[in-house]
């Protein structure tokens, strides 16, 4: 046991830096990154561009950066340095790209207005078609009275 103890300690000490490095290494994968970036030549998200030569190179770069222990954000920053911000699968905030933000907002507003207008119209139609409240017609009143007379309450 005394002989084995120093060897065991040495093995543990050798393993410590590797374990610490593994703990520091951000756990990201190519799959995790490629759905958030574009293949600039193909004009599609990288995950959809499987065969294009440029996509193959871009994916290889991501693989190298993942192996180099870079986080997802660091990898995206590097891709933006290489290809510009358009490589990020998010539309820009100006020009035609702005439509990507404005149209959904506009659609929500138009939808809300449509629901509101439909609700108002439905309430009006319902109010118009509802029977007038008040005294029942004489025939109905007579029939109601005869029904009530039949029951001893």
């Amino acid at each position: 046991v005394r002989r084995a103890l120093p060897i065991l300690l040495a093995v543990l000490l050798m393993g410590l830096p590797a374990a610490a490095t593994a703990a520091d290494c951000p756990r990201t994968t190519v799959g995790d990154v490629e759905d958030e970036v574009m293949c600039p030549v193909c004009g599609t998200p990288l995950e959809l561009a499987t065969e294009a030569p440029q996509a193959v190179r871009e994916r290889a770069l991501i693989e190298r950066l993942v192996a180099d222990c870079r986080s997802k954000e660091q990898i995206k920053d590097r891709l933006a340095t290489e290809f510009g911000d358009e490589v990020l699968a998010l539309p820009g905030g100006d020009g035609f790209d702005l439509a990507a933000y404005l149209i959904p907002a506009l659609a929500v507003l138009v939808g809300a207005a449509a629901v509101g207008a439909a609700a108002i119209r439905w309430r009006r139609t319902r109010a118009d078609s509802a029977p007038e409240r008040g005294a029942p017609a004489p025939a109905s009143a007579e029939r109601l009275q005869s029904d009530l007379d039949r029951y001893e309450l």
Partner: protein
Amino acid sequence: MQRARSPFAIAAIAAVVALIALLAYGLSQNEPDRDIEQALAQGERKDAPDFELDRLSGGGKGSLADYRGKVVVLNFWASWCDPCRDESPLLNRWHRRLSARDRGMVLGIDVLDVSDDARDFVREYDLGYPMLRDGEGDVLSRYGVIAYPETFVIDPQGRIAATRRGPVDDRFMREQVLPLVRARA
């Protein structure tokens, strides 16, 4: 008597029309620019769009204006493009030939490429001509480049004299570049 449309119907029609107009605008923006080819077909030479880009080697910037007065063979390439591999040795030979007499040169623009891969490519083929880097593809769109490689021959006055969509060959260089060089001499 005609029934008046409700404000809601008018708003819905306006929204649909606006959406169609937006789609048309988006499509028109993605259309490749064919002005250069149209001008050449009419025997005209358009001014080559100027640009300033980082040098691929990392040492500062370079622009087209730096080479005004020379015949410039402007070549758009990428390391992932196989035809670019085929034409690079030929461009390198022509650059040596043109620059030896200070009459012309080849200027390479690496586009939409991983810079390390591009530098490896330059080393692999021992390319001696100046290389700039258009990582974002801005210059690419100004020249209407849609495939790789593409080459533009620019005369000493900075006008586009010829284009080649696809790899250049010796015949193209002799027919399109040499006359400009000889005219300058």
